């Protein structure tokens, strides 16, 4: 196997691990938009807040050398994001249902407040989780060589999220309600379903996914201020490319954008950022509803 092949395989694998993280975060964004028609501009803030809160729980446990420190940190970050998401829907967004511009502005305001509060409480130092020994270190990957184990785990988590979401949407009663609500919210209510409550559940779930992304992302690489804006932008791009409200579309969008970023950085580092937007512009021009989106 030549060195060039090795490099190409590494770049592809890097792209896929990045795509895994993008998928985890963007699937929550897409879920919320699909049912609620809310462009949740605070989705990146959920990512950031889960990372910091998770870390605050993780650190003292890790210092005491507790083996489950990371798992507790993940659970804390995800739970906090879920509760926060439910709170946002109940207190802020629920009563302005259908007023999309107002909701967008409120969530932008919220994300600014959250980022500043995090800066005030935790300071500006980047944080990074240490994964437990079982998923730390490096693993031999054929054709690539040694590769960080946690990044492979990251792909596994994304697959679990994708399968879990598919099962939830297609095999449970809540899933039926969500799909019916995406089709016709009003009629779902007339069928006796408490649509606002389903909305709170969806908001909590979508935010929990952003939170999971935050903790996983902060384990793979340091978490710093500004990650909220980056992951909000990525979520938007991924669902625009893949198609709003479709799990498979989000997965496809995440893979495309993740690969494009890594390949771009390897081949033409200076202009790699542009590649992402070239893909987005091309999709918007040729298929405005996204590759797998419904018209």
């Amino acid at each position: 196997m030549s060195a060039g092949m090795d490099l190409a395989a590494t770049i592809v694998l890097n792209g896929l691990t990045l795509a895994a993280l993008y998928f985890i975060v963007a699937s929550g964004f897409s879920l919320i938009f699909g049912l609620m028609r809310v462009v949740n501009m605070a989705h990146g803030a959920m990512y950031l807040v889960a990372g910091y809160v998770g870390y605050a729980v993780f650190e003292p446990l890790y210092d005491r050398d507790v083996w489950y420190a990371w798992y507790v940190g993940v659970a804390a970050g995800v739970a906090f994001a879920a509760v926060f998401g439910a709170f946002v829907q109940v207190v802020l967004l629920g009563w302005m249902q259908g007023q999309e511009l107002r909701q967008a502005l409120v969530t932008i305001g919220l994300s600014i407040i959250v980022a500043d509060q995090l800066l005030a409480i935790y300071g500006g130092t980047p944080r990074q989780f240490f994964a437990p020994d079982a998923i730390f270190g490096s693993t031999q990957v054929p054709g690539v060589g040694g590769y960080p184990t946690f990044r492979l785990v990251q792909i596994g988590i994304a697959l679990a999220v994708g399968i879990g979401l598919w099962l939830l949407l297609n095999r449970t009663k809540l899933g039926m309600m969500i799909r019916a609500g995406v089709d016709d919210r009003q009629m779902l209510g007339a069928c006796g379903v408490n649509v606002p409550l389903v909305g709170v559940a969806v908001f909590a779930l979508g935010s929990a996914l952003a939170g999971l992304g935050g903790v996983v992302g902060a384990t793979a690489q340091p978490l710093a201020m500004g990650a909220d804006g980056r992951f909000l932008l990525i979520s938007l791009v991924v669902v625009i490319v893949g198609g709003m409200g479709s799990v498979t579309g989000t997965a496809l969008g995440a893979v495309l954008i993740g690969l494009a970023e890594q390949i771009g950085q390897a081949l033409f580092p200076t202009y790699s950022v542009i590649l992402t937007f070239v893909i987005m512009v091309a999709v918007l021009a040729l298929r405005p509803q996204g590759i797998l989106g419904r018209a």
Partner: protein
Amino acid sequence: MLEIRDLHVRFGQAHILQGVSLSVGARPMAIVGRNGMGKTTLCQAVMGLVAVREGEIALEGAALNGLPPFRIARRGIALVPQGRRTFPSLTVDEHLRLVARRGARWSPERVYETFPRLAERRRNGGTELSGGEQQMLAIARALLMDPKLVIMDEPSEGLAPVIVDHLITVLRGLSAEGMGLLLIEQNLRVATEVAEEVAIMVTGRIAARMPARELAENPELQRRYLGVATGGH
């Protein structure tokens, strides 16, 4: 059963319902009237789908005004809306399981016995059905909610005559079983063959109310209120 008193609904400047008063008892009732008279808005107002500013709606004495649609549905009113509005993303079977309740008079099994076509199509999506099948699905969806009163908005719209005959048989069967029926219809034959009583709606008001047979047999009344010369069709 359903009591509507002096109901007003406005959309901006448009005064759609201008003081509708109507009481629906145990006997099936139909509301007829030309297009744009406010019949669909009345259905939506009862179901809580449009805002009611003035007037009262009560089911068995309990006020429904201001309740969200899902509470009104749980109180015992089911809507079979105009255009069916079945869910494209749900299969026939999922439609039924979504609304099925334990201990209700109707179960998915009973629906499949009553509408064998739906049993054949149980794995199909809500929009892969013919108009008649979609209508049966919309009716089945309403029945599974175990309602006291079913409101049907133009159920015969766009259906082939032979399907309309089937629909009439189904609706008469439901009524004979004691299900309350409020039928909005432009098809005079469906209205008068299913309902015992007919209310005529003209520009947002109930203009007249009479036994269904009287309207069916009186072309003069039909011409005056509905602008049609003959019953039937």
